[in-house]
């Protein structure tokens, strides 16, 4: 909804705004692209900002990839379903993903996103500011709840703390989107011997259980 309002202020037509949500379907990237336009930037700069904002989907896609089956085209299309919330929701503690949960929650998110954009674009003027409703706290709170669920081991907590620290240090320094991408490198702690042994032990335990 707020995207619909913001895009109008940046000079997009109602139709352009709704089409953008329907074919791009990446909230934060759309906001950054439109913010560049609103500041008087060109299309090239807007697209570059969207690409940087979306760069976090690279590590997310890498993590999701082993859970996908089928040929290259099918995998590439399934990869389009990745958005932050459904990716986080579908992640299992063993590193695999619940594909159907991810597709289902993304489908619901898509319908809500496009409908919300349309409402914001057409009736934005009368709705007031979404920030007054505290809606900007919704997603970080959701991610925090998933993180508390996810980070059971001491190692996962350490990686989470490191990821948050990297993001905070980079927020004032790097363009939007880059802090979250670079924070994913905190997961390279998994290359240490202890982390590899933990995965091996779990795989053996699962093998015996079968």
């Amino acid at each position, binding site marked *: 909804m707020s995207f619909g309002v913001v895009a109008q202020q940046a000079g997009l037509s109602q139709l352009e705004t709704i*089409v*953008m949500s329907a*074919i*791009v379907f990446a909230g934060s990237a*759309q906001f950054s*692209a439109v913010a560049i336009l609103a500041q008087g930037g060109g*299309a*090239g700069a807007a*697209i570059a900002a969207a690409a940087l904002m*979306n760069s*976090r*989907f690279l*590590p*997310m896609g*890498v*993590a999701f990839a082993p859970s*996908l089956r*089928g040929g*290259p085209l099918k*995998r*590439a*299309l399934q*990869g389009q379903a990745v958005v932050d919330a459904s990716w986080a929701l579908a992640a299992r503690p*063993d*590193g695999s993903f619940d594909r159907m949960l991810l597709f289902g929650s993304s489908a619901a998110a898509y319908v809500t996103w496009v409908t919300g954009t349309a409402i914001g674009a057409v009736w934005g003027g009368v709705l007031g500011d979404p*920030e*007054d409703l*505290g809606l*900007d*706290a*919704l997603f*970080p*709170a*959701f*991610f*925090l*709840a*998933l*993180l508390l*669920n996810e*980070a059971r081991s001491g190692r996962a*907590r350490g*990686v989470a703390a490191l*990821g*948050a620290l990297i*993001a*905070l240090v980079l927020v*004032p320094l790097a*363009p939007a989107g880059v*802090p*979250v991408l670079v*924070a*994913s*490198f905190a*997961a*390279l*702690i*998994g*290359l240490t011997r202890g*982390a590899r042994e933990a995965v091996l032990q779990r795989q053996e335990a699962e093998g015996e259980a079968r």
Partner: protein
Amino acid sequence: MIAGCALVTFAIKAAGPLALGGRELPTWFTSVVVLLAPALLAALVASQALADGDRLAIGADTAGVAAGGLAAWRTGSIILCVLLAPAVTAVLRAL
């Protein structure tokens, strides 16, 4: 501009599954992937709740997210967390 954004988004989302899908991966890779979720989630929380654009900022949303997090930690309920966080934020802004 819209078509360009759609194309780069498609390419970025396709890259991981295209390069790596459909086969077994070595243990070292799995051990990194397992830790990607906590790293990315924590970075998303930090960059959204503790910053405003490219500036570090603590505000009503920070307090709301903290309240939601506390509720999730004490009760284990994600629903309670996502209801409480915007509510606390909105009340603080209305004061």
